[in-house]
Structure formats: structure tokens, C-alpha cells
């Protein structure tokens, strides 16, 4: 979707403000919001793409106003309701419904190191022919899906060169909507800064974007 999350190339967002000796979390609630997202994710009711898309679905003004972990907290509440783990009434009252049976958490403290160590592998060991080769010139398609996509707007319609083939990965545009993994090749595509931004950009510079087969067309 053409949301405000798709920030590449926008101007007027203000100065970058690095913080000296920044703590990992700025307050306890941030840490809890972070951990709750991961622990609730262990129910495997949604996937990483659906989780990202849920943040994109925040109203634009909220997206720009909220801090990172405020977005994570809002995203979690929506996902919990959408996937039936918690009802809207329970979130509002803070109390479990009388009828609800107590579940057993899928993630214990003892299982945390294993969960983090194994991660979530997004590559797929399936034989899918690549549509493009290293060195080939490709155009990022001019598509504007209303759902989730990882093809940033600033690349659409522009021509780049395949720099490397990363292999076969789950396709977010379908996976985010539970429409299947649709595994396909992902390439690092090199776009010159001039191609993307015109004469104002340095002729030496470039932007490398990881793009799936379905985002590209031959030139």
C-alpha cells in the first residue's frame, strides 16, 4: 500500500537526532511491549509479513506521531483481536471474559534462547527458476497494490542492474495476507542515484534494493 511507512526519498521529516549512550529500552513499558510482541508471536497465528503490514495499517497521522514501541503495542492489540486470541471487550476491560479457558503459553523462559537462536528462516529450499541473471538490466514494475508490498515507491518504474541473486524467499505480498508463501528469487538490484533522483545526485552513488522476481520486468 502507498502508505506513509514507505518513506524512502521523502523530505521535510526533520533532523536526525542520535542519542549518546542510548539505552536499549527507554522505559520499562517499551521493553514489555517488545517482549509481548515476540511472546505472542510464538502462537504462530500470524507471520512477520502480516505483522509488518499491521503497522502499515495504522492511520497515517498516528504512524507519524507514535514512537516505535507505541506502534508495536498498537499492532499487537490489533493482531490479538484479529486472530482470536483476545476479544476487543477483553482489551477494553483488561479482564478475561468469564467464559475463556486458561491457555498454556507456547513460549517459556527456558525456550527463549532456542527460539532466538533458530530465528525464522525466510528462504525456501525449493527449486524455482530465476527470471533474471546477475548483470541483467531490469525495471522495477509500476505496481500500486492496496495490500502489503516491499517494493518501495521510489524504485517503481526505474531501471537497475541485478547485482546478486540471494536465492529463493517467501513473497511478502501474498504471505502477509495468508495467501501462500509463493517462494521466488530475491535479487539485490543496483540503481544509480542519478536514475532514482536525477541530476542532483552524485554520479558515483547508488542504492541497492532487495527485490523479488514479481517486482521486476526485463528491460
Amino acid at each position: 500500500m502507498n502508505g506513509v511507512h514507505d518513506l524512502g526519498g521523502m523530505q521535510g521529516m526533520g533532523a536526525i537526532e542520535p542519542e549518546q549512550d542510548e539505552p536499549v529500552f527507554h522505559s520499562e513499558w517499551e521493553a514489555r511491549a517488545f517482549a509481548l510482541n515476540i511472546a505472542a508471536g510464538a502462537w504462530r497465528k500470524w507471520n512477520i509479513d502480516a505483522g509488518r503490514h499491521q503497522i502499515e495499517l495504522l492511520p497515517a497521522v498516528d504512524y507519524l506521531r507514535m514512537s516505535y514501541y507505541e506502534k508495536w503495542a498498537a499492532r499487537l492489540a490489533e493482531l490479538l483481536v484479529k486472530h482470536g486470541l483476545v476479544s476487543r471487550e477483553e482489551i477494553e476491560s483488561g479482564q478475561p471474559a468469564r467464559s475463556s479457558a486458561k491457555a498454556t503459553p507456547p513460549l517459556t523462559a527456558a525456550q527463549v534462547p532456542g527460539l532466538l537462536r533458530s530465528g525464522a528462516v525466510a528462504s525456501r529450499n525449493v527449486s524455482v527458476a530465476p527470471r533474471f541473471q546477475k548483470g541483467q538490466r531490469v525495471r522495477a514494475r509500476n505496481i500500486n497494490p492496496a495490500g502489503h508490498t516491499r517494493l518501495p515507491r521510489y524504485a517503481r518504474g526505474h531501471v537497475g542492474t541485478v547485482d546478486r541473486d540471494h536465492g529463493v524467499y517467501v513473497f511478502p505480498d501474498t504471505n502477509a495476507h495468508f495467501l501462500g508463501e509463493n517462494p521466488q528469487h530475491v535479487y539485490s538490484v543496483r540503481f544509480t542515484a542519478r536514475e532514482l533522483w536525477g541530476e542532483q545526485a552524485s554520479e558515483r552513488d547508488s542504492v541497492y534494493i532487495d527485490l523479488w522476481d514479481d517486482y521486476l520486468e526485463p528491460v
Partner: protein
Amino acid sequence: MKALESLLVEKGLVDPAALDALIDTYENKVGPRNGARVVARAWSDPAYKQRLLEDATAAIAELGYGGRQGEHMVVVENTPTVHNLVVCTLCSCYPWSVLGLPPAWYKSTPYRSRAVIDPRGVLCEFGVEVGEEVEVRVWDSTAELRYLVLPERPAGTEHLQEDDLAALVTRDAMVGTAKVVAPKKAGA
């Protein structure tokens, strides 16, 4: 957040001890010191560096690092003629396994919007001087590949061992918004 947590705990959906363990991991165990060890090894061992640039995930696993948000790693090397900068314009993708959780500026709209259109301006704000003759490569982490910059080893560190080298390597140097600086000589 407390209200949501107690609801989820009461419903048996999450184990509060698991939350503590998750937080402890990223506050105390997984952070940029991991990445610094990778960089120091690459500076000290040319064969390791070769493996790192060819298959970063496997080479990083040799040092015991990997897993969540580091499943598919790519390392890009800074040289006298190339400077690399990592961003995620669409969200805040970051190589947790080697750098820990990202700093607020990396997740902010100013950095995410400008890194791709004005990388030299961004670098300048971070105090990084990149000459006209240097090629700037920006890596937008739009897929599940996670990028780590292998900074240039500063001159004057030839005598240093791996541990001392690792102590010089900062988080920002591995994102591309800083260079690694040699320690001042004692008495200098």
C-alpha cells in the same frame, strides 16, 4: 502496557518469565559487541574475511552468532573508494544478531526518508567525511537480508590484537554512519 500484559498472562497466552528472558537477552547478551567481534576477526584473519564476504551468515555463525533477525546476513566492505550505508526505508529492519536492537534514530522517519536520497548529507550530519571520489552505496533492507558494514581498519592499529580491535568498533561504524578511529597513543 501493564494492563495488556496482565490480561495476556491471566489468559495464559504469555509467560511473564519468558518476557523477562527476552528483555534480558537484548539488554545484556545480544548487542553490537557481537558485530565488533566479527569485524575484528575479519581484520585479523584474511581467510575469515573472505568467508565473511562470500557467505556472511555462515562466517558469523562460526563465532556463535545468528538466529532471529540475522538469519540471512550480507556483509559489505568499506574501502578507500567505497562507503556503505544501511537503512530500512519501509520499516526498521536491522541485524539484531550482531548489532542488537536498533537505536531510535535508525527507526526514525528522518533517517529512513533521507538515507536513500541524500546519503552524503546524512553522513555529513553524523560527522563522516566522504570525498567526492568515494562511491557511496546505500543498502535498503527491503527483504529478509540483513546488512552489516565491514568498516575500514584504521591506520596505526597494525600492532593491535583482536580483542583490542573489537573494542574500537562502534555500532554506528557497522551501520555505516561512522568510521572506526584508531586509539590515541599514550602520552600523545
